Each structure stands twice: as structure tokens, then as C-alpha cells.
């Protein structure tokens, strides 16, 4: 197990480096010089091009790409992600400001999604092919096939505009700094993120539970006198949980992209709106840092999922 983990970790690190190289190259190959883009064409002067060249030199953008890459990665290891080309602020500071709201949204959304999926997925499995199952299946399919941003807009229309129950966007009412207010602002985005993320997971929970419910050991357990509820909770649920956990780990990257979409609908000041802004400005350092963070998140959740998977299924050899 230890050796497996080490090997798996080593390959993750290697993949991470490959990703950094690819992302770094791609972003730098994208058209549009971030400095030239800051100067509107109506404001060129005879010295503008010299200025752009000088600035590129100052920022090291005129050096060979491998050199730029090595410089960047060297600094990145010391925690220095560089400065934004657009406003000169440290990238780590920019990301730091944005990551908290996104994590807040992601983690609460995730918890909600898991709760919904476990409760309704189990319920549907236990009542397989009965009316409850059909209703739950109908709603989960509806949620899977409707984009989150659409549900978001509809929810805003209903709960904010029509019923005036909840705020339509943002993290707080301007000038108000209370927990109650912050919670009110969380309700809609978290619910919608949780709902959209829960649908796929719910289908999986239902499937996993059904296969466990029909397993032979269940008959044995019933035969030795356990109640059906006891079997479901003590045996079936526990057995089904491990593959479900694996799926949850795989879902985390998906959760990030879901959160990014929800952020733009609800004007949530997180990483999603940041990356859209910066991409339009070709602000390399910020974009690269964002891509790297995403890569780390994806790699780590895959690593966790793989390890969990080997625990569930001994047939997957730890080699």
C-alpha cells in the first residue's frame, strides 16, 4: 500500500509538471499581447511600440519561453506567483481574495449535494420501481438536463424579483455586515449548486444501493433475523458508501466548474468571475495560477478517488 501510494504520488507530481508546461505554453501562445492590449488603438503615438517593447523587456516577456517557464516555476515554488500585468498586484493576493468565497460556495454546495443524493438516492433504491422512485428519478433527470445557470435565473426571478424573499445576488447587502444577511445571500447559490451537483450523484447512489440490496449477504442477514431497515442502514448503506465516496472525489473538479457558472449568475465575487475578467485581458500570471490551482485540485481528487477505489475493490491490485 505504501509503495503504491508513493508511486501514485510520484506520477501525480510528474503529471502536474507536464500540465504546467502545457498550460504555460498555451497561454503564452494565445494571441494578444497583454501590454499592447492595454493601449487602445485610438491612443497610439509614435513612441507606443517602443514603449510596448521596453515594457515587455522589463517584464521578461521577450525572453525564450523555456527561460520564462523556468523563472516562473522557480518563483512559484517559493510561493511567489508573480504580479498581475494588469494592475500590478501580487497574484497570490488576488487569488487569496477570491478563493474564500469560491470555497465557501463549493463546500456548502457539496455538503448539500451529498445529503440530497444520499437521502433521496437511498429512498429511491429502497422503493425501486414504485411511485417514489419514479418521482425522484423524474426530478433528478430534470435537474441533470437543465443547466444550473438557467435554474439560477429562474430562482432569482421567483424568489427575489416576484416573491422578494431572498436577495438576488452578491455576498451581502451593501453596508450590512451581519451573519444573518450573509446566510440569506448564501441560500440561493448554494441550493442551486447543491441541487445541480446532486442529480448525477443521486443516480449513482440509487444504482449502488440497488446492487447492494440485491446482494446475497442481504438475504443472509434477513435470515438471521435482522429487520429490513437494520439491513439497509447497517450493511447495505455501509457497503455502498465506499464507491459513492469515490465518485464524490471524482466530482470535485466538476463542482469547481459548476461553482464558476453559479458565481456569474449570482455576482458571487469568487474565482469564476475573476478568471473571466483576467482571460479577457490576457493577464498571464493570474490565468496560469488559476490553471495550476485547478490542476492541483483535479489531480488530488483523482488521487484520493483512486486510492479509495483500491480500498473498495481488492481486485484492483495495489501495484
Amino acid at each position, binding site marked *: 500500500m505504501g509503495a503504491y501510494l508513493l508511486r501514485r504520488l510520484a506520477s501525480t507530481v510528474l503529471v502536474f509538471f507536464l500540465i504546467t508546461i502545457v498550460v504555460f505554453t498555451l497561454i503564452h501562445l494565445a494571441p494578444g499581447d497583454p501590454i499592447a492590449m492595454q493601449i487602445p*488603438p485610438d*491612443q497610439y503615438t509614435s513612441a507606443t511600440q517602443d514603449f510596448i517593447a521596453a515594457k515587455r523587456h522589463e517584464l521578461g516577456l521577450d525572453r525564450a519561453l523555456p527561460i520564462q517557464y523556468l523563472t516562473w516555476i522557480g518563483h512559484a515554488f517559493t510561493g511567489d506567483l508573480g504580479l498581475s500585468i494588469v494592475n500590478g498586484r501580487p497574484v497570490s493576493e488576488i487569488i487569496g481574495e477570491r478563493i474564500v468565497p469560491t470555497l465557501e460556495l463549493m463546500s456548502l454546495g457539496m455538503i448539500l449535494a451529498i445529503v440530497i443524493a444520499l437521502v433521496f438516492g437511498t429512498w429511491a433504491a429502497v422503493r425501486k420501481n414504485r411511485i417514489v422512485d419514479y418521482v425522484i428519478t423524474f426530478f433528478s433527470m430534470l435537474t441533470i438536463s437543465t443547466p444550473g445557470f438557467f435554474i439560477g435565473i429562474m430562482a432569482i426571478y421567483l424568489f427575489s424579483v416576484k416573491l422578494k424573499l431572498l436577495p438576488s445576488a452578491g455576498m451581502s447587502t451593501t453596508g450590512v455586515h451581519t451573519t444573518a444577511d450573509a446566510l440569506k445571500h448564501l441560500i440561493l447559490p448554494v441550493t442551486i449548486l447543491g441541487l445541480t451537483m446532486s442529480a448525477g450523484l443521486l443516480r449513482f447512489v440509487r444504482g449502488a444501493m440497488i446492487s447492494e440490496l440485491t446482494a446475497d449477504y442481504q438475504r443472509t442477514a434477513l435470515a438471521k433475523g435482522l429487520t429490513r431497515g437494520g439491513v439497509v442502514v447497517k450493511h447495505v448503506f455501509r457497503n455502498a458508501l465506499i464507491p459513492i465516496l469515490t465518485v464524490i472525489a471524482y466530482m470535485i473538479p466538476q463542482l469547481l466548474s459548476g461553482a464558476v457558472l453559479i458565481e456569474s449568475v449570482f455576482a458571487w465575487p469568487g474565482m469564476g468571475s475573476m478568471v473571466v*475578467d483576467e482571460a479577457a485581458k490576457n493577464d498571464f500570471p493570474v490565468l496560469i495560477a488559476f490553471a495550476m490551482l485547478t490542476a492541483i485540485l483535479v489531480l488530488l481528487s483523482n488521487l484520493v478517488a483512486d486510492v479509495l477505489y483500491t480500498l473498495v475493490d481488492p481486485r484492483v491490485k495495489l501495484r
Partner: protein
Amino acid sequence: MKRQRKMLAMVAGIVAAAMVLSACSDPSNPADETTSAATGQTSSPAAGTTEASSAADTAATSGGTAATSAATTGGAEATEGTTGTPAEAGQAAANATGTLNLFMYQKPNGFFNPLHGASGPDQEVISLVYEPLLIASPSGALVPDLADGTPTISSDAKTFTFKIKKGVLWSDGQPLTSKDVLFTYTRAADPNMDLSRAATLFSTVEGIDDFASGKAKTISGFSTPDDQTFVIKLTEPNVGFLGQIGTIEILPEHVVGKLPIKTFTQDPYFAKPTVGTGPFTVAEFKTDQYVHLTANPNFRYQVGVKDVFLKILTSDVATQQLQTGELDLTNIAPVDLDVVKGFDGVTVDTIDTAGFVRAAWNQSQKRFQDPKVLQAFLYGTDRKSIVEGAIKGQGIVRNSVFGPPWQAADLNDYPYDPDKAKQLLTEAGWDSSQPVELAWISAGNPDRDAAAQVMQNQLKNVGINIELKQVQASWIPDHVSVGKFDMFMYGGGDYTAEPASVIPITSCQEPGKGPNNGLYCNKEFSALLTKANQENDLAARTKLYQQASKIENEDPSQMWLYSPKSLWAVGKTFQGFQPQALANSWFEPWNWKKAS
């Protein structure tokens, strides 16, 4: 003039740090922000360009006899300037109540510094905190703000004298004097600063060369005979200068005078400037969420509203929040007009602007050098139908590089006439087999998508083969700015009150060496502009510009399309709002009130 100032400021970007430059453009749409960034008046992508309404007479342009006649603009407001209910020192905020939430269409760079350069959202904050000597009124005329009456101009148009209002206090209680003006203008020209304007805006100021080269510590052309007087001397007549310099907001020397010069424009102080002469000061800047401002107790008039929040939102969210009452003011796009009009308790104010949408021909290409060809484009396109369709009738067809007061009355408005277009193309020997690529930034500009479609369909009928090319902002530096394109459609703003501001964008130039993207070159036109800028007599000057407008009408510098109106949706509890012809600046915001 603000636009001109900012344009020059941006031109001065050559000496600026990249981050500073970044200030000027809308990420999604730098081309659109060209003029607007130039003006510091970036407009809401949702609402199209919102610039000066009518380029009314500039305060700077009249003059007349020796250093006496005040420059006047149309109407009484011109000499009175901004007004309000006078307040005792420290008591201005005594009756201020309520909170206003205003739409900010894009995140600010966060340097609320008038010398930083042009970024629309930042300018919205700057114009609440600081004040210029002269300000554009809602009608687009320049009127006195910190200046006490209109400035005087000598008959040779080389000396300008500003009087400064008495009794104006900074928000920390210190008095405003002409020394603050001297400090601000000198700092703006300082060659050691990121965004020095020594070589651009201030190039005609006496002694600027010695100052820029470090030979002199001060600029001999600037003087302060007393605390209320500021005098500028120029080396050559430049009537347009007054309007360009007068709109720079004045900074408090006693507060910011000691900040390091090199990084002055981006000094952290300007993320939360607490001292200004304006009606509000910045209380909190929550990155990417809002800027919170509070009433300045030392303002010279009563301030009506206690707190102002400029909220950074997308236009969709802004429209929602207008409905829920979470927002009191937003810009809207013409296509949303009918929907927003239906909102309960929301009124829509419209104002004519001289923002415009046009397409530049690359006139370095031989085929675009014959005016007959250019005229054929105009005759061959039904621009009225574009106004009706693309902007729902909320605007007018445009025909000149100049705003209305400077246009001759009898300009050809090029009515839709495909036969005439065909005939002109035949006469010019147009080769219809060669396609013309029309590029534009589509994102956020549904009106331009529609306009491009109309142009393509209609011009095909007259033998012009338009190929449509939607581009990203990143396409511009390598193509538009350096003369590597056929046609490029983009938005821009008008020359608030200063027609001299068209000089840079119409002067003969090589590709990539200046702001004349279409590489238009008409020597007769340029000569007239130069002459007009030396003419101190308003009537004579107007005549020269009108003459020039005739030339540009025959030999168009750009394919003029339309000027959209600016549409403001105002919540019912927001009183005292005056739509400003200049986007991103407010007029008399101290008179705003929030009804409960």
C-alpha cells in the same frame, strides 16, 4: 475635453507602467474604449457608448479682447456653474440621509487617482471624490466647478487665467488654494511619474522642455499670483488647451504631495482616498464587490445622501436588482428599454450623447483612397434602418467627425441610394472581386452584430463584397493599431466640448505611430484644424470647423454609422439624478436624495 485629456494621458502611456496602462481598457472591448478610455468615460457595454451629448460651445473658446472676456457657453448655467445649498464648514453632511446603490459595470482598477489615466469605473469614483476647475454640464457645455467663474483667455490665446472659488475646503478641513492646482498640473507633467503628460497635453506650456529634461524644478508657464489665482502661459496659441486641462481633478498637495513620484499613479493611498473637495470620500473599497463612499462634512454645499455604494455587477444582475430595489440606478441597452419601462417604480431617463459607432477604412489601401468609393459605402448602406433595428430608434445617424455645433448646416447626409453607390463605384473603377473584411468585437455589442449584417447584405447589392469577421480584443494590437486590416467597426465617444480633440485621430500618420487607425490623410482638412485651434474668436473658430466638416463630409475619415442615446433606469426613491452626457462622471451628485 475630458476625453481629450484622457486620450493624451493615455498617449503618455508610453512612459507608463503596463499596469497603469491597463487602466484604460475594458477587458472585453478595448477598441470600444478607445475613445472612451481616451475620455475616461468608458461606457457600459450594456448601454453602448454614453458620451457628451452635444458638443456645446466650449467655455474655452470664446475670448475676444485682451485677457478680459470670459469664455462663455450657452445659457446661464455657463457662468454660474455647479450650485447647491451652501453649507457651514463641517455641517455639509448634517442632513445627509439614506443609502444609494449605483451600478458599476466593470471592476475598477482601484487607483482612484485623476492622474492615473482612464478607466471608466475608476472615473465614477474619482468624480465623486475630487473636482476639476471646469466640468461638463449635462448638456455637454463646460461650466465652472472649482473655478470661480469662467477663466479668461488672452487675445493671442496663449495666456489663461483661472480664479478659484473662495472658501472651498478639503474634506480634512484644510483650505483649497491655487497651490493645489499648481501641484496637480505640475505632477501631471512630471517626467518621473508613470503617466507624465509633458510630451503630450502640456507640450505647448512655456518652460515644459526644461522641466521635462530636468533642467528646471518648476514649470515657468504655471504661476500662482495669489491663493485664488492660477495662470498658464503657452508658447503657441492653443485654444483647445483650456478645455483639456480644466477638467483634470485637483489633488490635495498637503496629503499626497509627499507620495513617491515614480509610482504616484498607483500609490496604495489612492485605493482609499480620504481627502478630496468633492461631496463624498471613499470609506471602503471591497475588491470586486463595491466601493463605499460617505458624505464629506466639509463640502461647500449640503450633501443629500449619507452613503453611496457603487456596486460592481453584470448588466443582467443590475437589471434584476433594479427590480428588487437593491439598486437605484443602472445603464440599460436599447433592446431592454421596453422591458425596463415595464418595471414598477422605475423611470427611464434618456440623454443624447455624442458617443458613436463607426467603421474605419484602412485608407493606406489604394482602393480606399478615392472619396467616391467611401461615399459609395455610405450611399450603399441604409443607416436609418440600422438605427431603427440595431438600437431600436434610440439614437441618430451620424455624419461627421465633429459634434453638432461644429458641423456645417448643409452636410450631405448620404441617404440610402444603391444606384448612386453603384455609379460611384463604377466611376472609381472599384474591383468587386476583392472582398473587404469587416472586423468588429461582437461580445456585448448586439447592435454592432446587427449593423454588420445590414452592411454586408446591402453593400453586396452595389458590388461590395463584405466578409464578416468577429474578433476578440486581442486581435486589435496586431491589426487595427498597425494598419493591418480592411475595415474595423468600433464605438467611440465624441469630443465633449472641444473639437480640437479630433486632431490626433485625423492627422496624417504612419501605421502604428499614432491614434489615426484608419490612416486618413487630408492635408487641407488638417491645415484648417490647426488654424482653428489658434483662433480665439468663437464665431470665427466655429466657422473654420464648419468648413473643415464640409471637407470631411466629402472625404470621410471613417464610415460614420450612428450615435446611440444613453439610457438610464432610475429607481423611484432616487431623486435629483441628472443624466450626464459624459459617461462615468456625475453632475452635482451632492443634490442627490434618497426618499424613504
